[in-house]
C-alpha cells in the first residue's frame, strides 16, 4: 500500500529519513512553511526559506522516489508583527507559481492574538485571490480549543471560503467534531507529548469516520518521527480494520484533498 505524508518539515530531517519513508512506501510528502526554531531577522530570510522548500527539498526527495510538495506562508508563530508579515506576503505570489506548491499554509494562530488573526486573514485573502488551497495550523495545548473557535468564526464570517478546500491540522478530541461539522477537512498529528498518539488517532477515525480525515506525523526538529505515521497504520490494522479503509485514510484521502490542486500528481485508487 502506498502512503502519503500530508505534513512534515523535511528541512529539519536528515536524508536518512527520506530513505526510511521510502522504505515504508511513502510516495509523496507535503511541507508547510513554518517556524525555524528562531524568529527570522528579515523578510528576505523567508524568501530564502521558500526557495529551499521549492528547489532543494524536491530534489532531495526525488532521490528516494518521493514527490515533495510545499505550502507557502508566514507562519503563525512569526505573524505577530503585521507590518513585517505584509512584507513577506508581498512576495508569496511568486512562489505560488512554483511546480511543487499546493497552496497557502500552514497559516493560523499561535497565541490567539488579534495581530495573529489579522495576518491569518491577510493570507486567506491571498489564497482566495489566487485560488489556492489552505492548510491551517491550530494552536498548541491549552490554547487549541479557543483558537479553533476563532479560526472557524473568521472563515465563516467571510462568505467566500469553500470548506472543502481548507484543512485544519493538529485536531484533537475536543476540536475535531466542530471542524468536520463545519464541512472542512481535518488532520490529526501524531506527535509525542503535545498532540496525539497512533491509538488516539484511530480512536477518532472510528468515532467520526474516515471521510475528510487525514493523518500526519508533522516531523520537525522537535521530538517526532516520520515512522509514527506507519505506527498508526499498524494500529488500524491491529484492530482488524479493512485494508481499503486503511488505504483510504493514509493514501486516498490525501489524494482527494491535495488533488484539488492540479499540481498534485498521485491519484486515489478508487
Amino acid at each position, binding site marked *: 500500500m502506498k502512503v502519503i505524508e500530508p505534513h512534515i518539515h523535511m528541512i529539519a530531517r536528515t536524508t536518512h529519513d527520506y530513505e526510511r519513508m521510502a522504505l515504508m512506501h511513502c510516495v509523496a510528502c507535503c511541507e508547510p512553511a513554518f517556524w525555524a526554531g528562531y524568529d527570522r531577522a528579515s523578510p528576505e530570510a523567508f524568501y530564502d526559506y521558500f526557495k529551499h522548500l521549492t528547489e532543494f527539498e524536491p530534489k532531495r526527495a526525488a532521490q528516494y522516489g518521493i514527490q515533495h510538495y510545499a505550502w507557502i506562508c508566514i507562519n503563525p508563530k512569526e505573524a505577530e508583527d503585521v507590518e513585517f508579515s505584509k512584507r513577506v506576503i508581498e512576495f508569496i505570489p511568486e512562489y505560488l507559481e512554483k511546480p511543487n506548491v499546493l497552496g497557502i499554509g500552514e497559516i493560523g494562530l499561535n497565541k490567539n492574538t488579534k495581530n495573529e488573526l489579522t495576518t491569518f486573514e491577510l493570507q486567506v485573502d491571498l489564497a482566495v485571490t489566487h485560488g489556492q488551497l489552505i492548510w491551517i495550523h491550530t494552536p498548541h495545548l491549552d490554547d*487549541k*480549543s479557543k483558537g479553533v473557535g476563532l479560526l472557524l468564526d473568521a472563515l465563516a464570517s467571510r462568505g467566500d471560503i469553500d470548506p472543502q478546500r481548507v484543512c485544519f491540522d493538529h485536531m484533537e*478530541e*475536543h476540536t475535531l467534531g466542530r471542524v468536520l461539522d463545519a464541512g472542512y477537512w481535518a488532520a490529526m498529528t501524531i506527535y509525542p507529548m503535545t498532540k496525539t498518539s497512533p491509538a488516539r488517532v484511530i480512536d477518532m477515525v472510528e468515532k467520526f*469516520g474516515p471521510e475528510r480525515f487525514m493523518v500526519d506525523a508533522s516531523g520537525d526538529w522537535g521530538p517526532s518521527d516520520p515512522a509514527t505515521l506507519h505506527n498508526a497504520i499498524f494500529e488500524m490494522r491491529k484492530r482488524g480494520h479493512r485494508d481499503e479503509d486503511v488505504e483510504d485514510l493514509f493514501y486516498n484521502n490525501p489524494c482527494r484533498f491535495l488533488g484539488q490542486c492540479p499540481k498534485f500528481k498521485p491519484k486515489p485508487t478508487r
Partner: protein
Amino acid sequence: MTGGSPKLPCPKTGPELLDMYYLEIRSHLLETAAAFDRLERSPDWERIKDDQRLRKLRASLEVLGSSGTDRAERFLKLFSV
C-alpha cells in the same frame, strides 16, 4: 458529533480490546501514580502542592474515573483556556 455510534466501528470485540490494551493502560496509569509519588517526595513539596497545574491533573483523575465514551474530550476541555 460527540455522542452516538462510531462511524467506523472497531472490528474487535470488547474482550479482544481488553486483551490488547490491558497492559498498556495499566502501564500508563502506573507511570502516572509513580510521577505523583515523585513530586510528593520532593523536599520542597509544599511549594508546588497547590500549583494550578497539579490541581488540573488531580481534577483529570475524576474524568478518568467517570464513565462514558468522551473522557479524552472532557480531559482536553479541562486543560483548555
